[in-house]
């Protein structure tokens, strides 16, 4: 099993029955494939769907029904369609219980940067800012380090932030970390990852509760 598969499998445990969730583009949308059918959740998609589900079978694909990532989705019983202002009213009124989102950087205060790399990547903010600012629980799914091997977890975000102090939990290919008032608390380590190794690849202060260390 690849590290990303392990990460995604771990992330499925964040999804609580009876909840409403939003899955951001990238790793979070891949999570869909790992969720069991008949799961009692409603997935919100910014383009105006509550109750989005996995890709529809070919003969049932509706060209007028996609999720925010462009996939031709199916819907679950009890789903609804609405316009973009209602979709974002739902977000700003904190009706989405959990948002799983990708990130370029997260810092130990729980601030999130995921929309702009000045001079390199600026396709626009989409729905990220409102989701990050208004969802009660934000779980970031990302690789621990970027392609150059640099830590994506920092003491302070360097890139323009999407929202300050919004992230509850970070799940990476190396560890599960919670943002606490005392700093980043390591909840779980991936197989073969030692506390010393995690410290060596993380540019932030880490707290190891006794049972993890």
């Amino acid at each position, binding site marked *: 099993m690849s590290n990303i598969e392990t990460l995604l499998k771990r992330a499925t445990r964040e999804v609580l029955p009876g909840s409403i969730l939003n899955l951001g583009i990238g790793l979070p949308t891949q999570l869909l494939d790992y969720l069991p059918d008949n799961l009692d959740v409603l997935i919100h998609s910014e383009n105006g769907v509550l109750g989005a589900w996995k890709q529809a079978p070919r003969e049932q694909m509706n060209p007028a029904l996609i999720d925010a990532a462009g996939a031709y989705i199916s819907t679950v019983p009890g789903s609804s369609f609405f316009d973009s202002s209602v979709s*974002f009213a739902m977000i700003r009124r904190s009706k989405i219980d959990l948002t799983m989102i990708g990130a370029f950087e997260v810092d130990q205060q729980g601030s999130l940067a995921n929309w702009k790399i000045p001079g390199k990547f600026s396709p626009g*903010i989409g729905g990220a800012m409102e989701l990050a600012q208004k969802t009660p629980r934000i779980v970031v799914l990302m690789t621990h380090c970027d392609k150059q091997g640099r830590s994506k977890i920092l003491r302070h975000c360097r890139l323009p932030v999407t929202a300050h102090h919004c992230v509850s939990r970070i799940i990476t290919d190396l560890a599960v970390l919670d943002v606490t008032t005392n700093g980043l608390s390591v909840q779980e380590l991936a197989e073969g990852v030692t506390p010393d190794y995690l410290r060596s690849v993380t540019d932030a202060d880490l707290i190891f509760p006794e049972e993890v260390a």
Partner: protein
Amino acid sequence: MIGGFGSPGTPFSLIDELLRQGQRQLTLIKNDANEAGIGISKLIEQGQVERLITTHIGLNKTAIEWMNAGRLQVEFHPQGMLAEKIRTAGAGSFGFLTDIGLDTEITRPEQLLNWQGQQYKVEMALKADVALLHAARADRFGNLVYDGSAMNFNPLMAMAADQVIVETPECLDPGALPPNQIHTACAFVDHLVVLPRLTSEYAVMEHHVKH
């Protein structure tokens, strides 16, 4: 303003007519820039668009190149803010107060308002001269019904433009659409264009199908 989030709800046929007529220096308001070679990207690629007010153009490499080369001015808004600015204009109001992005780089000092001890950001309403929209079904009065996720910005834009032009593949007699299921009431619609057929642009896009 032009309806659609990705392809669903995009009035591809009305866009093709705009392409044929060739008006230039247009300001477009649309959630996204479609994808290279599709929808409003064709207007951008033909040099008809001066300015694009949008939320995210990540799926259109051509639009990003034009923006980076300074050939297309792009104004980005958070998606719900763009929707709400349009909804506000459609409701006949002039602006609203929000806390979205208050302490981020998207907020300029002149947008801040302190009211009764609380800090807000002022967002102004956004209206347009013309709205081009797509509806799944209509009646001859201009009552509209949207399908699936093709609703998105269409009903908001229908209320926020001086001239509202709607394309639809299915136009019925008044009374055929149940009154309690109409998404946009005909009072907001000026012109209806009935499409004899839907081109391949309206079909499932193979590159978005996972195998």
